[in-house]
């Protein structure tokens, strides 16, 4: 969908101009940002706590140190995380197991934040394919582009939510892809995306994550606002903060997920 809007805008560019402008933005009170994951692979797992800054400040985010961070699971396991570098808290022994629910507790100077996330089992990737695509928008890009397709079988009669991450030569490409099976329950799903900056002999790793509904909701809303502004090109109807699963107004998310990987080499 975004692509279509994108093309529309490109066609307008021939008589348009773009420039950096000064906008007088309010200075908001700093907000707590918590980002934590626990997976079914080997730990350690970490929770990062930072703060927001004013928009036109340099992109370095104050770390929140000396907080109490605990993770517990539905089987009664409990661990207090240790701060290994400013704002980064790490587990030592806790393991992620499919089917368990994990609870995060954070106490920052007496203010408590909690979140809960279920680690669903994930299906396997049956196959990966790719295709070369000529997508030189208005001749602007001479690079080759590749569409990568992952096939996997959705488990029937269960609400499944997936996230798909692409790593090009082991580097995460930063794009957010999430899908739910509301219309695809029990089907063989083919998920394709066009990857930019991929060249021959590159190795592409596809990671399929099983996530819970709240985490899906978080990444789905996050993807619509990333790089968002105002005007017809905006991806979402009105920009807003993504729907976080953390209590007490903290930004960010806490996600338990299980994942599988598959690798493909472009040649």
């Amino acid at each position, binding site marked *: 969908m975004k*692509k*279509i*809007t994108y*093309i*529309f*805008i490109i*066609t*307008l560019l*021939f*008589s*348009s*101009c*773009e*420039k950096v*402008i000064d906008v007088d*933005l*309010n*200075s*908001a009170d*700093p*907000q707590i*940002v918590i*980002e934590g994951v626990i997976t079914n692979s080997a730990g350690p797992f970490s929770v990062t706590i*930072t*703060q*927001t*800054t004013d*928009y*036109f400040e340099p*992109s370095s985010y104050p770390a929140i140190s000396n907080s109490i961070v605990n993770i517990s699971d539905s089987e009664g396991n409990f661990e207090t995380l240790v701060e290994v570098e400013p704002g980064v808290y790490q587990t030592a022994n806790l393991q992620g197991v499919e089917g368990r629910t994990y609870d995060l507790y954070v106490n920052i100077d007496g203010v408590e934040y909690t979140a809960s996330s279920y680690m669903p089992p994930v299906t396997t990737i049956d196959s990966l394919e790719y*295709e070369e*695509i000529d997508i030189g928008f*208005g*001749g602007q890009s001479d690079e080759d582009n590749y569409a990568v397709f992952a096939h996997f079988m959705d488990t029937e009669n269960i609400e499944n939510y997936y996230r798909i991450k692409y790593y090009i030569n082991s580097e995460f490409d930063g794009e957010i892809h999430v899908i739910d099976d*509301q*219309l695809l329950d029990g089907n063989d799903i*083919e998920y*394709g995306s066009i990857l930019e900056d991929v060249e021959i002999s590159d190795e592409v790793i596809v990671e399929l994550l099983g996530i819970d509904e709240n985490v899906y*909701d978080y990444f*789905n*809303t*996050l993807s619509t*606002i*990333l*790089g*968002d*502004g*105002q*005007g*017809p*090109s*905006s991806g979402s*109807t*009105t920009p*807003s*903060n*993504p*729907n976080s699963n953390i209590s007490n107004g903290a*930004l*960010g998310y806490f996600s338990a997920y299980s994942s599988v990987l598959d690798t493909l080499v472009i040649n």
Partner: protein
Amino acid sequence: MKRKYFLLVLFTLIFFNGFTQNKFTISGYVKDAKNGEELIGATIFIKEIQKGTITNVYGFYSLTIPEGEYAIQYSYMGYNSQEFLLNLNESKTKNVELVESTKQLEEIVITAQKKDHNIKSTEMGVVKMNPKDISAVPVLFGEKDLMKTLQLMPGIKSAGEGNSGYTVRGGTTDQNLILLDEATVYNASHLLGFFSVFNSDAIKNMKMIKGGGPAQYGGRLSSVLDIQMKEGNMKEYDVSGGLGLISSRLTVEGPIVKDKGSFIISGRRTYLDLFLKLTEDYDDITLYFYDLNLKANYRINDKNRLYISGYFGRDIFSFEDMMGIDWGNSTGTIRWNHLFNDRLFLNSSLIFSNYDYDINSDIGDNELTITSGINDIDLKEDFTFFINPQNTLKFGGKFTYHTYIPGEVSGNENFDSFNQDKDYGYEAAAYISHQWNLSDKLSFEYGLRYSMFMAAGPGDIYSYDDSGDVIDTTTYKSNEIIKTYGGLEPRFNATYLIDDKSSLKLSYSRNRQYIHQVSNSTSGTPMDAWIPTSNIVEPGISDQVSLGYFRNFLDNQIETSVEVYYKDMQNQIDYENGADLFLNPFIESQLVFGKGRSYGAEFLLKKNTGKFTGWLSYTYSRTEKQFDDINDGDWYPTKYDRTHDISIVGMYQFNPKWNVSASWVYYTGNAVTFPSGKYEIEGQTVNYYTERNGYRMPDYHRLDIGATYTKQKKKGREASWNFSLYNAYGRENAYTITFEENDDGITEALQLSLFRWIPSITYNFKF
């Protein structure tokens, strides 16, 4: 028998005196002598009794007055008046043809109404225009566009550059009813809104009602734009057209049988894509639109007349063979005017309207087509009963069958086709409206409309829990009624003439709307879906009160008015955070419901005649919404809350050959949501937002200038050159402002502006 029944109804509904006196009726049509086109709003005035009437949209008039000898004057702005002496000792038919005044060459007249119509009519909140009014106003790419010019009038605001959507008195863009020969036009934009779908060459008349609309109109909360196509020359064949920088137009019209029937065909196509082909970067982009207006009419006899009209337009956009989208409207109207007698006029219409879009994509082995749209079939009956000069009664009804196609996806073997359930609805309305001139000073137009909507099967209807998950599905059979809504819509207008030059007007109206448009982006796109009222979405309701003071100066050469209004809106729609609306079968789970209010003051100063004509309009307004889920339930400004809006239009006729014009607009920037901070997730910078619509885009202003050189040739042939310069001082108005991190990791605000100094030249001809 039928007729008696009607009369019975009328007698019980209204009171009128003096029916025992010997009265006769004079009725007929008023036409343009040159081409036989009926004149809408021509004045018929009887000096002896100081009473009169105006012709309706079919050019028909009827006056019932006591027996006697009268001098009857027929007049129409820009035409020579005619006067007849008539001994009214029986009911008579009088058809009149008026000759266009030759003064036209030196004087431009920008209104087709009687000079003091604005003061005396019960209408308020109404703007009328015809193509002649606007031919001199400079426009983008020289494409004269009634819709764009309308947006220079108070209270009617452009939804922004590159958007022919408009908002009226704080309403949203989907709250405007747009009728082309009575058929609903669901998307009035060509080329993403840079042009409207209405080809000025085919348009005869345009009327915008901003509030206080009479009871025969309904179905939208904010405004009605009622457009009539030309009927075609009844006397002789005529070819006219224009060659512009980006498009060309051609119109052919003529009699089918002289003075009995005529036709008009008018077409337009842009050729921007041909220029794109010449550029290196965009040579694989196809982008054009075309539209076609057709109309034919035939007078069977004095009592019966038939009209058939149609519109077909399409925008086509594609990128290589990979991706394409095309969209457009088609409408068709069959109308039958029938005179039961010289005082009871009936128009019956059968109307078809369709809007749809297709998205095609062909990437690799994957071919996919998505189709979505809406179509309507309407049946409409409108009676006008001309009782006497003091009383006119209008009544009638309308029935509509709506089909909504939210999305059909089909593809090659790589895709599973799936169709979202179509939605169906029956909409029905009945109305009665009474125009009552109580005295020379006081007149009323009041009425009542009852409207209802039934959402109908077949289909699955979902109910949702608070988090938007489906908790229940009910399956309905074909034509099974899912939900019924309905209610009364009272309308009231009063005019008090203070003196010959000034009047006070008051109006109240309630409107109900049973259809909503959900927009996938912050401005309109062809993919915006229309959804019906349902078990979840309730009909919108608006109540508007307005008060106006109208005063003319210098023998009606200068019109001024001040109108203030307050509008209350219920059951308004907004979106959940991160709403996903495209092809979503559970679209209703993405919506939130709240209320709105709008108030403002509109000032207009207009000079209609003389060498210098034009107007100055200023609107002060506030529009706010309140939703429990947004901004902690506080009232917040809507996107189009536009505090100040100014338009100045001036035209000067130097001599019969040269005419120059300029227009300047200024308005407060839209209310927008900007980030107030930022943070990092997965190593990416994410904007942090504090409140919805808490910021403003920069103020918008722009000057356009134009000049027209006209050469009159023999035998009515005419040729003209139009030169214009859009955005003459090259203001960089913000089209979008985006907040992103650049390649160096620095967050910045990027402004995109369109269209600085766009010159154009258009050649128009007529022979």
